[in-house]
């Protein structure tokens, strides 16, 4: 968990830096805003969605071997109301480091209620820049979407979104 610690410490130091700057320039009100923005390593949101079915459970067992998936460091950006289930835009971003000794090894995109829930897995290397992956996927119906990043050290970080769909894009 040394990686976590260093990231939290960095976030804290950034927060201190922003607070210092804000105090100098804008006074106390600005400082509070700066602090709130900087320490938000994990996004506030509803509790993590439960595993909905056996297929998703199998994906978790096969790919993650029961390791803990924590919310944070990954941002899943999708329309919360997807009009056409055949073309749903997805952007997955992460602030996790991409260096030679520490990098994001894989990014998994799971659509809970698709016939084949593991829609895609992106296997990356340190040659790539910071994680910003953009693609288009299909959705059968309204579902939780999971974007899960696996680091070279084996940590799992995730973000979840519930996306509503009316037009079935899978058949």
């Amino acid at each position, binding site marked *: 968990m040394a990686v976590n610690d260093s990231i939290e410490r960095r976030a804290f130091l950034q927060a201190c830096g922003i607070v210092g700057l804000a105090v100098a320039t804008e006074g106390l009100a600005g400082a509070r805003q700066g602090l709130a923005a900087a320490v938000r390593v994990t996004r506030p949101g509803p509790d993590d969605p439960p595993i909905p079915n056996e297929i998703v459970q199998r994906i978790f067992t096969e790919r993650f071997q029961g390791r803990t998936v924590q919310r944070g460091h990954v941002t899943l950006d999708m329309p919360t109301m997807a009009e056409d289930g*055949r073309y749903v835009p997805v952007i997955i971003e992460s602030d996790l480091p991409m260096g030679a000794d520490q990098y994001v090894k894989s990014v998994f995109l799971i659509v809970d209620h698709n016939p*084949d829930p593991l829609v*895609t897995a*992106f296997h990356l290397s340190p*040659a790539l820049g910071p994680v*910003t*992956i*953009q693609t288009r996927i*299909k959705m059968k119906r309204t579902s939780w979407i999971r974007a899960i990043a696996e680091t070279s050290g084996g940590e799992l970080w995730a973000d979840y979104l519930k996306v509503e769909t009316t037009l079935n894009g899978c058949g």
Partner: protein
Amino acid sequence: MPETGKTKIVLPERIQRGDVIRVQVVMQHPMDTGFFRDANAAIIPAWFISDVRVRLGDTEIARFEWTSGISKDPMVAFQLRADQEGILSVESRDNRGSQFRGQAELKFATT
């Protein structure tokens, strides 16, 4: 007529050493799930790209596992650290065993 498997890689026009660049890959493929039927109620068989490999020169820098859950005429974009010049290639394979390839030259701006 669409040319199945045609692969296009789009890079920024001006690249300087050390830039983090956006690489966009666009392919032509039906990406059929196997669950839809045609006008005569016959099932359209599954036909989709399942494996994508991105190489810079001879080095594999990324590999994507895909399913028919990726939209028709797939698009994927990601960021690359432009530390070296070379041929950036994308090779893919579909579930019928067809292989496709596209490439672009990663070259640093001279001025």
